């Protein structure tokens, strides 16, 4: 260890990592994996989709329509083979291919256990075929399978660490379940789930998690009108905000775990070996992956004041998808997350602090009254009137907040028409501005960037869309 590194940040950081690791690894120690077949009986969760209560066909729906159920099978399609070839050009044989999948992919693409990662045998087609199945999100069922059918099995006690059941009923719990893969972690469940720069460069799409969008798109194998979901349907804005906080929390932890592993002296065979620092996927893709041609070099207008940090300045923001709007100056705690060739210890300290803060913030948001959608729209409108978004990420966040606010307005009878009009305007005029494809017309995700995104045009269109509120109001 470099003795010049201050010890305090290391101690704090390591303590934080230890606590995370302990909490996240609990399910591996405490519980047995049962497999989804035990859920699939027609009398349990394998009933006919659309018939009877949602719990009776939750497995059927997942199996037939949920992308999670095919996430294993697609590891053998052409895109995946291309990614593996880029990651490990020598992995020519079927066995070597599977070893790469084990080390790099299955922790997210399958319901996997730590021993699955280190095995050197071929993958079990059954495991592949099941993809991400029940226990990935609900936790290994060894300890909760029997009691979960009892009338007395209710309340918070179900989610105690010793049960192994993961909390999918609270907003924070559900988000934390998703981010284990959709953001990543190097320690949760005793496995590495790290969508790093190597994988993205090899062709895997970069991860930009949004809880509300993902919940929308996942076939609902739960009762949309039950007590649990009522909490979710109360406010789309809240889901989006909490989801963002938890995702950023996970991103901060992942950064810290990368920092720690980059200092590791473990052998080259270990999954914690050869972790680069800085890890480029911690930063905004488009901070670096942008054309340097004059046509695409479009600094935002300084008419209304240029922000201190923006991608166009060539400074890649840390987790810009979540943070872009929040890094307005050196007083921001996010300012500490800047790409530096060393400084892992500082990173650990900052990540510990910020992740704790974000989690507390998320919990507070779930217990606070639902955000006032109209008020939030007013705030956004005021801000965007003063200044165009810093970059594509900031614009995307504005769009997502407005879109959620429009849903909330639509959900209330007096303002339904208002919300629907805003939703339509956003969908037709604003969302297309955020779309981007490859610079040369190719659809390879590696060449995609919002190079033609125009913050000023976005600002104008967004204000126009918000004007529909005035036109609709009586």
């Amino acid at each position, binding site marked *: 260890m470099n003795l010049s590194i201050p010890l305090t940040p290391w101690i704090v950081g390591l303590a934080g990592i230890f606590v995370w690791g302990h909490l996240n690894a609990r399910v591996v120690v405490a519980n047995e994996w049962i497999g989804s077949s035990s859920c699939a009986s027609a009398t349990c969760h394998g009933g006919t989709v659309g018939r009877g209560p949602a719990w*009776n066909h939750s497995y059927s729906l997942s*199996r*037939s329509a949920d992308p999670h159920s*095919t996430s*294993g*099978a697609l590891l053998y399609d052409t895109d995946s083979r291309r990614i593996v070839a880029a990651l490990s050009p020598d992995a020519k044989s079927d066995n070597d291919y599977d070893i790469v999948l084990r080390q790099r992919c299955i922790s997210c693409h399958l319901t996997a256990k730590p021993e699955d990662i280190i095995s050197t045998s071929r993958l079990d087609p*059954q495991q592949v075929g099941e993809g991400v199945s029940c226990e990935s999100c609900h936790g290994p069922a060894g300890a909760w399978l029997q009691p979960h059918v009892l009338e007395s099995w209710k309340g918070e006690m179900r989610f105690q660490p010793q049960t192994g059941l993961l909390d999918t009923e609270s907003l924070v719990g559900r988000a934390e379940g998703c981010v284990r893969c959709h953001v990543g972690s190097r320690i949760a469940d005793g496995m590495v789930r790290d969508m790093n720069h190597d994988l993205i460069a090899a062709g895997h799409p970069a991860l930009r998690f949004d809880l509300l969008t993902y919940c929308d798109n996942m076939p609902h194998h739960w009762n949309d009108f039950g007590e649990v979901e009522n909490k979710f349907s109360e406010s789309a804005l809240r889901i989006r905000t909490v989801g963002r906080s938890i995702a950023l929390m996970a991103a901060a932890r992942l950064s810290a775990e990368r920092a720690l592993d980059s200092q590791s002296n473990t052998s080259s065979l270990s999954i914690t070996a050869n972790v680069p620092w800085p890890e480029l996927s911690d930063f905004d893709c488009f901070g670096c992956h942008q054309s340097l041609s004059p046509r695409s070099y479009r600094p935002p207008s300084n008419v209304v004041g240029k922000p201190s940090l923006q991608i166009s300045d060539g400074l890649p923001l840390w987790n810009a998808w979540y943070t872009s709007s929040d890094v307005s100056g050196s007083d921001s705690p996010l300012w500490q997350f800047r790409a530096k060739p060393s400084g892992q210890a500082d990173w650990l300290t900052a990540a510990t602090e910020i992740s704790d803060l974000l989690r507390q913030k998320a919990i507070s948001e779930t217990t606070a009254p639902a955000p006032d959608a109209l008020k939030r729209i007013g705030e956004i409108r005021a801000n965007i009137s003063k200044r165009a978004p810093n970059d594509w990420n900031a614009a995307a966040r504005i769009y997502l907040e407005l879109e959620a606010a429009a849903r909330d307005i639509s959900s209330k009878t007096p303002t339904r028409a208002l919300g629907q009009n805003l939703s339509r305007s956003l969908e037709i005029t604003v969302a297309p501005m*955020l779309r981007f494809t490859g610079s040369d017309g190719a659809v390879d995700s590696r060449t995609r960037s919002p190079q033609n995104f125009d913050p000023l045009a976005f600002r104008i269109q967004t204000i126009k869309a918000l004007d529909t509120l005035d036109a609709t109001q009586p």
Partner: protein
Amino acid sequence: MLALLAAVLAIGYCVFVYGSGGSSHVSTGPVATAHASFENDCQQCHLDFTPISADALRFTSSQALDRLEDACQKCHRVEHHFRGEMNPEFAAIDQHCAGCHHDHKGRDHDMLNVSSKQCTQCHGDLKATCTSPASIQVNPNVASFTAEAHGDFVSLNQGDPGRVKFDHGQHMMPGQVEAGFKGGFTLEMLEPELRNGYRKPIDGKLQGDDALVTLSCANCHQFAGTTSPALVGDDEIGRHIAPISFDQHCAACHSLNAIGKVEGTLPLPHAAPWKEVETLIASKLVGGQQIGSIRMPRDVVRKTPLVGEGVTGALESVSPTRENVDEKAILEASVRATLASVAQRCLQCHAEADITDESIASLRSGSSPPLIPSRWLRRGIYDHAAHRKVDCKFCHAAAYSPTVPSDSQTGNEARKTTKQDDSEIVMIGGIETCTGCHRDSASSIPISFADDETKRLLGGQGNWASDACIECHRYHWQPSPMSSPESAEQQVTLIQDASP
């Protein structure tokens, strides 16, 4: 002189015949209705001047008995009764029908109504009857039908040979869940066309679709038999209970839809060879994907586009076409996963050894015993139809947990125990459930019959019935589907189940 001698002999014979027993030595009376067509054709059964009655031994000959035997067996082909293990004296009795079945007793005489005395002449002391007393597998001294003299049923001592895991108590719960459990099975979870079969009347109205499925014994145990007159009445409808069939009795709740059951998908056949199951799964996967009921990898199902990448918001692949998908590898993985899921479901009820192709083939061919025996009384028979007034619980109490309502009751009372496999329990009552009614006519009514619960369970059935051996036992076991201990009917059902 010869004429005189003939006359003397004739007169002497008449004196002998009438003087020592009357006309019965010539003809003991009209033959039974079934034999009435032979009434005037004595030689069909008899030799001239060779009576077969036991008190006419002076003139009896083995030829006479053989003649009669041949006549009987022209129509009645029955098995002998352990004749090879009998001493010669008893073997001779077994050989000759008339030893038990007496004709010439009038048109209405029931020749099958054999006196218990005919049975106990051997079974009263089987050791004296048999050539190898050591090989006797039943009670060697049965003189009457009492617990002491007859002993309990063999099945109760030998255990249940069935190999299907089952919990009767749980299935008798409303919704098939115990008290304190959630997730009861409701009618709306069944196929619409099957619901009425399980709908029960409550307070004069049929249950709605949201009602818990509440099974009665008859949902699974149904009378079997034939309505056409049988030569031997043991196969009359109601005499037996039909074998359990997966398709008929289980599939409504436990259908084998392994690939995400969506409306209109066909369940997999039960007890089909694994290769057939595999092929069907593959075709169901491909078919389901073609009609859009099953998702393929990279199929776009998003209703809310992701912000940013791609024209549509879908995460478009490098070459977003079907050609990009390695269909074979994906299909193989999906089929393997689904097969494993199916096997896991099989194991909920079956032992691993019973779901191999070899075991299934053996069951289908009838070369191995059925997984659920069709009969538990190994040596006796029981007429369910004759006892239809009696509540099932009277004899099958073990199928009910202590707090489960009996079949004729309604209510939500439920047991407090956890799920159990009761397949090793023989769920028939012991001899004490029979002897209360089937007793010597001179004996008194059991005290237990005064109990209100017993009265209710008996359902008004009379409290006396014959204790004759033939009420439950048959002398000539035949390989009838319903009466054989290992019923071929079960195999037939299994094969029907297996046919797609």
